């Protein structure tokens, strides 16, 4: 078992003929992901990657022909909201949006629409998800993780890789790793993923990687205290971040004194979560 993605995931790649889209499609195929279709308007009828993946003009056509059930989006920020709407309207039930830099008001409209349609989005501004040994959707390098029982959920890309890599160095593997993205408004938050890990029989423990900005970690702490029976350990980035500055991610900002790392660490600690001082301490905390 795993969460969100598994061997039944039939993936359609939106923006497949762009540099990023094509490169990562090759990586995903190589990992064993069942990439059934790609979409680039105007390039329908083409095949990419030595004839392995057919390209369609619209998501609707791709879904009708191939039965794709999951989408991953690599299109530039100005076109990404439309690509998400298109996927939702074509009957896709799970959308991963890798694109960074989407205006926040667009995301609020997208999220409202997806909620009404019952479509789940992961991201935007995220690395996607990886179920080691089975499938990956997005850009997480496959070689840094091995199959196992640790669920990983994170707001940050490379910091997630860091944790997967540290786990692997200690012969610990991941059940599924989910990057929820660094934007202030996203499709899936910590609580959603924690609930999935709690219900997943393969997952024994969870790593939650947070950062400054917003209050998702605080709400995750409440959820953990109330509902989680599995061990959760955490790392929160940004203890040395100055207030009022956006630290790379659109959502990583301390505003009006709230969203500090100290507050998040306190909330998690009070909920019984062990918080690592740096990412390389995480394997030891899980092992204890």
């Amino acid at each position: 078992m795993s969460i969100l993605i598994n061997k039944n995931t039939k993936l359609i790649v939106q923006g497949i003929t762009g540099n990023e889209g094509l490169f990562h499609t090759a990586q995903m195929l190589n990992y064993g992901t069942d990439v059934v279709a790609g979409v680039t308007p105007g390039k329908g009828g083409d095949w990419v990657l030595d004839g392995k993946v057919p390209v369609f003009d619209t998501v609707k056509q791709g879904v009708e022909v191939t039965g794709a059930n999951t989408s991953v989006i690599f299109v530039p920020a100005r076109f990404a909201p439309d690509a998400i709407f298109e996927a939702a309207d074509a009957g896709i039930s799970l959308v991963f949006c890798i694109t960074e830099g989407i205006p926040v008001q667009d995301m609020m409209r997208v999220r409202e629409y997806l909620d009404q349609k019952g479509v789940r989005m992961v991201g935007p501004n995220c690395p996607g998800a990886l179920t080691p040994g089975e499938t990956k959707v997005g850009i997480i390098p496959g070689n840094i993780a091995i199959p196992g029982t640790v669920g990983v959920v994170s707001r940050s890309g490379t910091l997630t890789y860091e944790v997967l890599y540290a786990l692997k160095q200690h012969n610990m593997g991941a059940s599924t790793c989910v990057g929820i993205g660094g934007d202030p408004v996203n499709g899936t938050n910590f609580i959603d993923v924690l609930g999935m890990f709690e219900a997943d029989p393969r997952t024994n423990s969870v790593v939650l990687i947070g950062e400054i900005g917003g209050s998702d970690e605080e709400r995750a702490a409440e959820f953990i205290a109330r509902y989680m029976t599995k061990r959760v350990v955490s790392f929160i980035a940004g203890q040395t971040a100055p207030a009022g500055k956006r630290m790379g991610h659109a959502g990583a900002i301390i505003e009006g004194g709230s969203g500090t790392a100290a507050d998040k660490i306190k909330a998690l600690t009070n909920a019984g979560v062990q918080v690592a001082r740096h990412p390389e301490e995480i394997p030891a905390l899980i092992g204890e």
Partner: protein
Amino acid sequence: MNLHEYQSKQIFARYGIPVPRGRIAVNSDEAKQIAEELGGRVVVKSQVLVGGRGKAGGIRLAKSADEAQELATRILGMEIKGLPVRRVLVDEAVSIEKEIYLGITNDRASRKPVMIASAEGGVDIEEVAARTPDRIIRLHIDPLLGLREYQARDVAVAIDLPKDYWRQFMTVADGLWRVFVENDATLVEINPLVITKEKRLIALDGKMVIDDNALFRRPDIAEKRDLDVEAPEEISARKYGLSYIKLDGQIGCMVNGAGLAMATMDIIKLYGGQPANFLDIGGGAGSEKVTAAFRIILSDPNVCAVLINIFGGITRGDEVARGILAAIDQVKPKVPMIVRLVGTNAEEGRRLLADANMITAETLADAAEKSVAAAKERCNQ
């Protein structure tokens, strides 16, 4: 990106929100002339992107055009919280009966815009919220439907606005909502929105914060950016697609990924050092980007050592190493460089770097420890 008061009020006016008559002046003669046109009684307001302008003496009432000129001279010579005053707004003086607060911002937790109003305007709204939270009205707006007329009326009723003013208030609220949406703002604020003795509602002050991610479709707003509030290094970083924030420590950082960049700063602190900056070079550590990053980091004279932390993943470690070496060849740094590389072919990359006299590390903790030691050695000499 923050807009000045005068820029915000110009935009408000285009959306039917009444603002005082007034214009911007860059010298005292202009200020005098504008004051004469407005009948003498004016407010001279410094235009700098910081709070507390009034307390700093940057907002003053003039009873005559001559006094306006005198005040403008004084205010234009001021620095407020380190920022030079380059312009003053000269507005007609308004007789105030009552001050209200009205704003719209994004509520991250509910993922919706929220209209915030209070009958207690003209003061710091955060203070009102802390002291008397029941005096703050919060109304969420459906991002697909927008602000409905009844919602604006609800807010007017909730702040006890007499019904004679509802019509005017709804015009202001609707205008402010359209300002928020059509300019991709993350905050629009009128504080205070005043009721004048002549029974009119007027936006006496204005504030707008624009979503940086939306500037590509708001070119007219993008060109209003005030570079005074940004460190020159931050401006130059943006040009190269780097995300850089200057801090006041001694260890420069160059990292790929925002979360990892923060974690790198944190671990430097954990090992007894202080980070000199946040810098995310993003995906792909090509030598041009790395060169620009080095130049920016090393332009800070406090930097005693540089920690380069690259988690390659798919990118090959030896390619990253070659990019770093090419950049070093260009920039010729005089401080110790500590590199931690992870990813495919990382050993090969580390060997290349060690051959070039760089300090290499395998783990984050190791890299932090070596950086702190190298910085201490360098700067105590």
